[in-house]
């Protein structure tokens, strides 16, 4: 499964917030059609790495290549235009807006004809139908009303909407930051199935999670992040969960890797 050029490839990413080093020469690879899980301790720099890949953070140094072509994201809208969709930990939703409005935030469809081109009217019926289709396709939740404001949804339902948004629009890469953190057992299962569905459509996925059973279940490769850089990449078939935890906490070093100061 890991053949050809990587879809997304990052080399030597550095990011400093004042005196705090968040990324210290981080590398990253994502191949076509695979699920890569990123695990690491709190503060290891996972979130910053993911934000650099999704355009929310501009790295100080380092290169990011998409399909072998260097890209420079100045904001999340650039990454989205390239087909990279992200579900952030805080979900990035606007609580007062409706479900459909949230799914289409920043990429609204306009009415055909003069109403859309001159008067810029949004095509609400079409957007709402699409949103409803995507949500029921997911079967993630029971939403009575697509006009409901997102603030009236439960945490799990909000997560479902965010995941549906990413799955619906991600054409190259889908990044999921802790997608099952707020979900119950049943809903987590749907999200894991959804992750597989998305991969079956040929779209690679980056999954950040602290849930080792989930990681070991769906990931093709596990990227272990430690102290602002990639410590190693392991296959879940060759290592156990306790090995992975030992690597990421620094209790043990993987073979052939020496820890740098």
């Amino acid at each position, binding site marked *: 499964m890991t053949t050809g050029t990587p879809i997304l490839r990052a080399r030597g990413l550095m990011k400093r917030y004042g005196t705090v080093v968040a990324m210290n020469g981080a590398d990253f690879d994502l191949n076509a059609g695979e699920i890569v899980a990123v695990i690491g301790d709190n503060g290891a720099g996972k979130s910053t790495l993911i934000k650099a890949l999704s355009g*929310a953070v501009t790295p100080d140094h380092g290169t990011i290549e998409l399909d072998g072509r260097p890209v420079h994201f100045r*904001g*999340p*809208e650039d990454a*989205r235009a390239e087909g990279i969709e*992200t579900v*952030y930990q*805080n*979900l*990035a*939703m*606007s*609580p*007062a*807006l409706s479900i459909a*409005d*949230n799914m289409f*935030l*920043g*990429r*609204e469809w*306009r009415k055909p004809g003069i109403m859309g081109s001159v*008067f*810029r*009217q*949004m095509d*609400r019926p079409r957007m709402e139908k699409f949103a409803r289709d995507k949500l029921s*396709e997911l*079967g993630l939740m*029971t939403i009575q009303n697509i006009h409901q404001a997102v*603030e*009236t949804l439960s945490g799990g339902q909000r997560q479902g909407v965010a995941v549906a948004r990413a799955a619906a629009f991600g054409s190259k890469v889908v990044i999921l930051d802790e997608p099952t953190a707020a979900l119950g*057992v*049943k809903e987590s*299962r*749907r999200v*894991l*199935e959804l992750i*597989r*569905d998305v991969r079956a459509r040929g779209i690679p996925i980056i999954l950040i999670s602290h849930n080792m*059973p989930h990681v*070991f*279940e769906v990931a093709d490769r596990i990227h272990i992040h430690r102290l602002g850089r990639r410590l190693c990449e392991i296959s879940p078939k060759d290592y156990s969960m306790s090995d992975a935890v030992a690597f990421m906490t620094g209790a043990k070093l993987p073979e052939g890797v020496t820890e740098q100061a």
Partner: protein
Amino acid sequence: MSTDKPTKTISDYEATLTKADTAVAAFERDDRSFIPMLRGYLRNYPTMIPALVLLVSVIGFSIIAPRFLGVGALSIVLKQVTVTGFVALAQTLIILTAGIDLSVGAILVVCSLIMGNMAVVSGLPVAIAVLIGLFFGALMGFVNGVLVAKVKLPPFIVTLGTLSIFNALKLWYSQSESIRNVDIEKSAPGLLWFGNGFNVSGASISYGGITLILLAAVLWYVLNHTAWGRHVHAIGDDQDAAMLSGINVNRTLISVYAAAGLICGFAAWIAIGRVGSISPIAFETVNLGSITAVVIGGTSLFGGRGSIIGSVLGAFIVGVFNTGLSLAGVDDYWQMFAAGCLVIIAVALDQWLRRASQ
């Protein structure tokens, strides 16, 4: 897609999921009594609050002061609120983004001075003079927007600063001199056009008042039916989330402030028609008046929620109270007292509606 059989898992604790209850959780409703129903209704239709307050206050004042219900008094209200209403529209846009604009009144006065000077003193055609005034209105708003969006200063501080700056500029530009009504009538009557109007059975309705309603309708459409309007709400709701959702926050913020400046420039033209003359020290209370109208209209100062129609209604409520109280023979300072009470009650009501759980 999803199959009935659970996917093979590493741990077996999920094995019973196929037998999971698929029914949606149902709860007995206990919200059938009057107060919760009213609250639910008002939460869904927040504009109903200022509408009801307006209705009740009109009825109340016509009982207290029977002359109030006459068309004459009501058309006075419309005239009174026209300028404040325009500025309140601009203020609504800003407050929806969780900002505040203290410089709206100063922008208005600077624009009216520019229009008057260009048309009356320099003798330019009125259309050109108005366009120049509108341009400077948008430019001043743009400056506010750049300082808020790019320099990342709090809107309160930015507009407090530009309020002083624009006030200084207006005194310098006008040399503290007014432009008299006779001069405007003689050389640029077009500037006064919005003060004209027509009579409908004793009520004189100015073109300015009608334009206010039209502009409110346009802004309502823009805010609710275009992507830009959704972005304005989203930014006020949660700016970081809006940024992560791929909205160009800076550009939208700058456009909001520039649009507010443009509306204030337009309000300057209306104000010239309303007052008849141009003075550098006019409209000093319109800043706070516009914020009062917006808040009474139900727009949240924390951003993201509110309505244009509410702001117009809010401006009308203040106007009704002022006219009604003065017709009832109450001293002027009680009008201010009433406006203050209205603001506090409006915000208290808003908080009560927002509290979802109780």
